[in-house]
């Protein structure tokens, strides 16, 4: 059984462990590091509940080996709150964008990447942007509103910052 030592920077903190080559990144995050906000919802790379940012890019962490992330930066839902909640987290609460909450961390991480690339998406672009994340509770309607809330809030603070 092949193992090796890896270090992955998760939410700004280096995490080192001796792991099997076949360990999935999602298990490294959840089981080795106790960061259980990232969830597993399927086994065929469809549901997106496991979405994290890898060097700023949204990926399905169930379909990446932990060794591939060696030396790189991962951001999970636990890393979204700084001094205050991220506008996406706020938006999901304000707009009732979650019910059972299981898909929510993945949705937020996907939406983060979406807004990074496209700060003012239309409804259609939001739906397209989250089409790799499944939700069974909300029907997506309020998730769209949550992302729009965050987009507006981020644009506001960008405008204020510019003045």
């Amino acid at each position, binding site marked *: 059984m092949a193992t090796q030592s890896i270090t992955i920077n998760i939410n700004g903190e280096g995490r080192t462990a001796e792991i099997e080559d076949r360990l999935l990144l999602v298990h490294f995050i959840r089981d080795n590091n106790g960061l259980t906000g990232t969830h597993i919802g399927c086994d065929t790379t469809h549901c997106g509940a496991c979405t994290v940012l890898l060097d700023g890019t949204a990926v*399905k962490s169930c379909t990446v080996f932990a060794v*591939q992330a060696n030396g790189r930066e991962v951001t999970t839902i636990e890393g979204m709150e700084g001094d205050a909640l991220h506008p996406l987290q706020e938006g999901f609460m304000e707009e009732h964008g979650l019910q059972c909450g299981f898909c929510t961390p993945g949705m937020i991480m996907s939406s983060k*990447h979406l807004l990074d690339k496209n700060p003012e998406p239309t409804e259609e672009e939001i739906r397209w942007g989250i*089409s*790799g994340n499944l939700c069974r509770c909300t029907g997506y309607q309020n998730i769209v509103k949550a992302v729009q809330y965050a987009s507006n809030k981020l644009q506001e603070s960008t405008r204020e910052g510019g003045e």
Partner: protein
Amino acid sequence: MIPGSFDYHAPSSLDEAIKLLDDLGDDAKILAGGHSLIPMMKLRLVEPVHLVDINGLSDLNYIKEDGGFLCIGAMTRESTLETSELIASKYPILKDTSQVIADPLVRNLATVGGNLAHGDPANDHPATMVALDAEIVVHGPVGMLTGGKRTIFVDDFFVGPLTTALEENEILTEIKVPTPEGKFGAAYQKLERKVGDYAIAGVAAAIQFDGDTCSKAGIGLTNVGPTPVRASEAQDALVGTTVSQEDADKAGELAAAASQPVGDHRGSEEYKRAMVRILTSRAIMQAKERAEGGN
């Protein structure tokens, strides 16, 4: 959900990667985007003893025009193709294709090279590359290949389901698409049951015009055969015509006849064949519209 054990290798150069593949033989598989391979490993449909991760070969990630060709590095991510301005303006068929591959998250890691090298006729790029008469550049051991590389015409690349002309110790490194000249248009149309699914059927059409007349046509079909299918008779039928709706419909009939769909949960043989006919006609008309300056 849990893959079998394997040994992981992460070469940092192309030569290192080729050497590893040469040494390890058929016990090894290449890990590029991983979004075809890793799901299969998690279902234990494949259990490679060794994985050779080529994500470290960052100099295989590029899109550029050179010597009359669009050259796409094999490690170019689908999301890069999807958002490239060069692609959107000059090669929109490639954007059509990349944006319907799986979902946005998969596209952040999936590579163009991988989409071809996996050899799955259900993948979308193969048909598009057929329509565009692409060339596939492959690197291998210097002892085996002159200068350590060879170029394979797309029609010779796909051999059978999940089987390509790649040897065990070769790596697909670049895809070359002829840069269009004059009046040219190309489009890819995919029918899928929902976003993220493989195609019920997909059709890529590329049309070269000489004035108002079609001088050359390329038509490739997705997921209706053991490999991507070149609808040669349909292509021939367009040459010399002005590509009217009637011409496009006729080509659609011929493409449908050329397809070899298998009935499955995505559709019966009859339905898939009918969809090839419809999508071929639509792809041809969209290609024509683009050639005339439209969208």
